[in-house]
């Protein structure tokens, strides 16, 4: 039976009939501020707590209004209404807190950012103390964990690094070659490819790949361990979560990144070599001869030097975000995203600093 309700102005009664459930809200009459002193439920066929609340809230819009008299309700319905009425005050007139203004949000953001940086500094401090303590005790190093991490980070990333850098080498050589050919400067394409791939493209692209692939994985893994209290269990066993989990990952990244960058270098040069042969008629022996003439060791070393610096930042950010997960599943996702964003920003900023510093130092 559908719900009905009508207001009887003479007796100031709200008379309800039919099935009063959540959907009955539409049946409530427009009261326009008229007081309700009586609730009448003679013809109610069904009443649940949602329906009971709707009737009570209609009769009593303010917590200060008097409780209406209940008339003609069956004993079960009356008991239900009384039960709901006892909990009614908490539900009435609870306006939402006002929305935060821009200033408030900016302030909150600034405080959160400050706390975050302070936390990162604190983490670096703890990690340094822990690492220094471990240096004297090689027996406590987690060799097995380190090896497993190197395998995951390095071996697993080889195919994607080779694929990406090879393609970038192809694209870069193609575009550069297209320009150089107009001036008959075909051979200088080799110089350009070497400089770009070894010094900039390979380190930055590898760092971005590792940040997205490994950094995110580390945060998600440590974060899930935090949620399932595995980290607390490690600490309770008298082990340091930093020594067991963080330092092996950091060392593994330090080892894997330069190796990946070198592999990226080779793949990029191969890509460039392919295009040089097909598009610019620079045969492979000519390409290699030119490479031997113009490639300076420092070009290679600059690229390889950037890799461990990027690795440290990725590892720091990923581990710290993983360990600062709170105990809910949303936080794992949020921190994982944050790791990738922070790592990318850090990589780009560091690379810019390197570019300026190397020029100033005449490297």
């Amino acid at each position, binding site marked *: 039976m559908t719900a009905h309700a009508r207001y009887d102005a003479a007796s100031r009664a709200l008379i309800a009939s039919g099935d009063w*459930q*959540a*959907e009955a*809200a*539409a049946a409530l009459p427009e009261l326009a501020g008229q007081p309700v002193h009586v609730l009448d439920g003679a013809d109610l066929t069904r009443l*649940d*707590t*949602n*329906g009971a*609340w*709707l009737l009570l*809230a209609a009769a009593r819009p303010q917590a200060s209004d008097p409780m209406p008299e209940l008339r003609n309700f069956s004993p*079960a319905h009356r*008991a*239900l209404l009384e*039960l*709901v009425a*006892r*909990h*009614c005050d*908490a*539900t*009435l007139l*609870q306006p939402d807190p006002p929305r935060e203004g821009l200033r408030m949000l900016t302030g909150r953001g600034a405080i959160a950012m400050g706390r975050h940086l302070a936390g990162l500094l604190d983490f670096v401090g703890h990690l340094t103390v822990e690492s220094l303590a471990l240096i004297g005790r090689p027996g406590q190093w987690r060799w097995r964990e380190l090896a497993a991490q190197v395998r995951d980070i390095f071996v697993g990333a080889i195919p994607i690094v080779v694929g990406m850098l090879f393609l970038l080498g192809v694209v870069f050589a193609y575009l550069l070659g297209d320009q150089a050919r107009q001036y008959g400067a075909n051979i200088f394409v080799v110089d350009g490819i070497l400089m770009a791939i070894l010094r900039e493209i390979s380190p930055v692209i590898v760092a971005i790949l590792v940040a997205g692939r490994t950094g995110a994985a580390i945060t998600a893994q440590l974060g899930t361990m935090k949620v399932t209290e595995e980290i607390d269990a490690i600490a309770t066993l008298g082990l340091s979560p930093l020594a067991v989990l963080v330092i092996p990952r950091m060392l593994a990244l330090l080892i894997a990144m330069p190796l990946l960058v070198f592999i990226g270098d080779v793949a990029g040069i191969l890509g460039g070599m392919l295009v040089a042969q097909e598009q610019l008629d620079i045969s492979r022996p000519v390409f290699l001869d030119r490479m031997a003439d113009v490639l300076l060791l420092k070009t290679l070393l600059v690229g390889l030097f950037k890799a461990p610096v990027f690795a440290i930042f990725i590892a720091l950010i990923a581990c710290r975000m993983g360990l600062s997960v*709170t*105990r*809910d*599943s*949303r*936080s794992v996702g949020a921190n994982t995203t944050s790791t990738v964003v922070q790592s990318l920003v850090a990589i780009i900023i560091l690379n810019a600093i390197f570019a300026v510093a190397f020029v100033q130092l005449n490297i």
Partner: protein
Amino acid sequence: MTDTVLDIRDIHTTLGGNSIHRGLDLSVRRGEVVALIGGSGTGKSVLLREIIGLLKPQSGRIELFGQSVWDTTPAQMNALRRRFGVLFQDGALFSSLDVEDNVATPLFEHTSLPHATCRQLARLKLGLANLPADVAKKKPSELSGGMRKRVALARALALDPELLFLDEPTSGLDPISARAFDTLIRLLADSLGLTVFLVTHDLDTLFSIIDRVIVLSNGRVLGSGSVAELKQLDDPWLSAYFAARTPEETSPHGN
């Protein structure tokens, strides 16, 4: 209105090569508070998942309110879902929503009420679950285990279901919270006219609030009845189960 709320006939379930249910029959009448017990791995939780439509049994028939759970259109199943509420073992609260929105979610999705009204109804349910008003704006991660269970109970009650499924409602709670939770369930069952079907290991729950206990063993219902009736059954697991509590009762200190 049918008197039998839940009717299960000849259920067979095989999971990962293990036969879990071998011709299981049981039924629950309107207004009963029924507990399902059984040793670990007897398929209590599996049965519960089958009843609420999360896992399909190999064969057999499960009827809720006279309607088969596994031969329905999605629309019919959704209508059916509005008539029962489920409390999962760890609460299964949505961690991205605050407490109030957690409880209001079924109302948001299944009714056309304005969101503000849904939230007020959610607060009513929180009150019914004996939670203080100030938890409404908190996140589930800020609550204790007992409070999370109460919030989950409030969410299960959001649409005023006729039937409530509880999966180990008192596990992980301290004895005081567990007893308070039992009392709350019984109180709500009586005052809202609920039928309650719960899976439990908690003997105190059985002794305090349950009308009827159903014992699962070897993929079938071993027996059903009051605790006193079940104690008469000759089954090693059941004897050991009840013995876990009996000494404390029959031999007080200094005996």
